[in-house]
């Protein structure tokens, strides 16, 4: 470690103002602070600081995402094998297939996003910020596996620049950057982002897997939306896997269904949720109330089920396990920057995320999934909710002052 420290210290002058590699100062800074805890000591106020910093915060989120990422790899392979009509599912081949399918997307998201972050940090003469570490891993996980790489690149660039950097960078954005990436793709390239051709990988990956022609398989929610089913049995029958067998609630919970890469497994999402809630990084107020809101809305929808909207026949369990609901409730809604910041506000915000997600997905056959739009909508409303909570505090103080007069 000492040798590395020496190397970094030796390299420092050439990255500073006037140095040969001055243009890469932000990159050097990023690597240096990643490798060694900064030696800056406090100059005002408290003399000791909590060991927690934003780097660790972000890394914990990534750790919480790993179960979902690994499962996504397995599931990508599994769906491909299933589509090819295989009887046996060799674990490591499935994993390698999924790994090779997601790797280029991860690389593209990170290269584009971090590239922009480094340039902006250099331009603003600031330290590189960690926000994109999480965004970069989220982007491939919430997109269908067949999303073309160039689309990911364009969408990532769009949202990092116009959703984050123009507002001032990490901590200042109004909307969740990863979700805007997804929304950008969804509205700019609807044909490639929904329907029945994008959720299962059809190509060969470095010789693993096979070429499957004319592969079609929609997500269960997509199947329900287009099924035209008029009762609960019809809806249950409409949800089939790629081989045509019905999908059980257990499969939905495990996540062995077609869907966006990292968000199919409710089990893995719950493992991630445990990590985030135990470490206190995600707000339990938001996560729990999001699930509560979703459950309440699903109950209401199921109770007044109507043939006009086949998704209203789905049970509460199915609603919470299917699609991106759980993923959004655990990894998207509690983003501290874009969610409510007051404790009371968090309950309201989380609950409404849950309600709106199920509302959109059930009562709009055009959008089989509503979690993304629900979180974005609530991102926009979060400052309003906070405003009301803050006003209550202000009114209390004003009333007290008046009583004292």
């Amino acid at each position, binding site marked *: 470690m000492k040798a590395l420290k020496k190397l970094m210290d030796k390299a420092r002058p050439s990255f500073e103002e006037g140095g040969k590699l001055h243009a890469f100062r932000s990159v050097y800074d990023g690597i240096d602070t990643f490798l*060694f805890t900064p030696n800056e000591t406090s100059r005002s106020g408290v003399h000791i600081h909590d060991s927690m910093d934003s780097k660790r915060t972000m890394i914990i989120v990534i750790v919480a995402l790993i179960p979902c990422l690994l499962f996504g790899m397995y599931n990508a392979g599994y769906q491909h094998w299933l589509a090819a009509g295989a009887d046996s599912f060799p674990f490591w081949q499935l994993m390698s297939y999924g790994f090779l399918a997601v790797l280029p997307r991860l690389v593209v998201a990170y290269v584009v996003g971090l590239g922009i972050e480094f340039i902006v940090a250099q331009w603003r003469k600031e330290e590189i910020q960690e926000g994109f570490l999480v965004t970069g891993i989220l982007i491939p996980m919430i997109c269908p596996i067949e999303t073309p790489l160039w689309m990911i690149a364009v969408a990532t660039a769009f949202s990092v620049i116009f959703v984050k950097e123009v507002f001032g960078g990490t901590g200042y954005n109004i909307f969740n950057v990863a979700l805007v990436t997804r929304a950008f793709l969804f509205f700019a390239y609807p044909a490639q982002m929904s329907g029945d051709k994008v959720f299962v990988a059809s190509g060969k990956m470095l010789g693993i897997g096979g070429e499957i022609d004319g592969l079609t398989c929609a997500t269960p929610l997509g199947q329900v939306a287009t099924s035209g089913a008029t009762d609960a049995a019809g809806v249950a029958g409409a949800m089939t896997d790629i081989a045509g067998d019905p999908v059980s609630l257990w499969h939905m919970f495990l996540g062995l269904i077609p869907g966006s890469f990292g968000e199919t497994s409710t089990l893995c999402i719950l493992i991630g949720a445990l990590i985030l809630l135990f470490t206190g990084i995600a*707000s339990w107020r938001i996560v729990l109330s999001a699930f509560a809101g979703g459950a309440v809305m699903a109950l209401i929808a199921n109770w007044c089920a109507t043939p006009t909207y086949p998704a209203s026949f789905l049970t509460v369990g199915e609603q919470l396990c299917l699609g991106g609901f759980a993923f959004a409730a655990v990894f998207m809604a509690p983003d501290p920057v874009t969610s409510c910041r007051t404790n009371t506000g968090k309950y309201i915000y989380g609950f409404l995320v849950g309600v709106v997600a199920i509302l959109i997905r059930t009562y709009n056959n055009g959008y089989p999934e509503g979690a993304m739009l629900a979180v974005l909508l609530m991102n926009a409303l979060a400052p309003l909710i906070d405003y009301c909570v803050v006003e209550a505090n202000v009114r209390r103080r004003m009333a007290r002052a008046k009583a004292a007069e």
Partner: protein
Amino acid sequence: MSIGIKVKKGLDIHLAGGVPENARPAECRCATVAIVPDDFTGLIPKMELREGDPVKAGQPLFHSKLDERLKVTSPVSGTVKAVVRGERRKILRVVVETGNGEPERINVAKALSDKGAAREALLASGLWAMLRQRPYDIIPAADARFRDIFVTGFDSAPLAWTPASISKEEAKALETGVKLLSLITDGKVYVSRRPGSFLPDLPGAEMVDVEGPHPASNAGTVIAAIKPVNKGETVACLDLATLRRIGLLAISGTVDFTTTVAVTGSEVKNPALVDTVIGAEISAILKNNIPEDGRNKRIISGNVLTGVAVTSDGYLRYPYRQVTVIPEGDDVAEFMGWASLSPKKQSTSPTFPGHFLSRRLFKPDARLLGGRRAMIMSGEYDKVFPMDILPEYLIKAILAKDIDRMEQLGIYEVAPEDFALAEYADTSKLELQKIVREGLDYLRKELS
């Protein structure tokens, strides 16, 4: 009669280097003492004496430029050795060489019966400058009307030392102090203490039993729980040492400038108590008590949360009764500290094993342990902020210099020290106390 308060939000930071409970103070005499005008926030100094002038203990060194009645007095008799000035002739400190001589006598004949005389005695003795007021956390104006007076009877800050018992004379002094103070307020004199502590019920004062973690001892916490400060109101705050001095003044007519200092921190060889005077030399207080291991150290006059960093040839700052020495930490190369699972790391976050070691005494250094960021995590300040105030929003209003919003969100109720724990816990490493201090100064300037 006493009032009970339970503080629920807060944090006790357990550090190594506390003074043993049965410690007895050692005498410490020093050749010079110094008074730093900056410690008396809100007072712009104008010297009354020049370098070389003889001075008596209790004789004014300087007074406020705006009001001659507000004086800061010399803690020792001797001669004014130096008036050290900085940029634009700002007085940085006034150094007094210790000599012999009688202390200044103050007229206290009517101080315990007449309102005007009580105020006069405090102003003339310089003890008035040891009071703090809310709002603004400054020295109160000479004619300030206090709604109430709050005395902090204990200290819950990290490594702070509180005596286990109190002598009869001291109890008498405290009682007399309360008597005098009750003359200068329209309301009550509140004295906070730990339940079952050494402090007896003081006649004339409303005792406040405070339970719970730091900031239980902060005046702001107690005021918020009893009767928050509204716009237009002023309350005075002081600590028990000042109350004792006020009592002794009323009894004897002289000011007692002695103080017992707790020498604490992980870098101190033997944590101990030292009997000395206000403004004593740090070198005398820390004599032979700092190991010479070649590592950089940070000497803090005060505790690790609200104290001031001083150099080893510096002086004990007012109002601190504690000196803490911790590693500076700028000479450490820590590889990937953000990934550390070391139990030596102290944190409010459960991602560190140290979080669960409730009995461990930590030895943190002065590093920020991360980069400064915008406010990212939410609710971190709330967890350690026991008032009915939304700290995050107040900080934002201060940064935006929005006076109306600051008032609405409760700026009159807070002092920088109330934000110390939030500043410690903040993952974005923002300088909250500095922000609040600047906000209070800005508000005072704009509204005066």
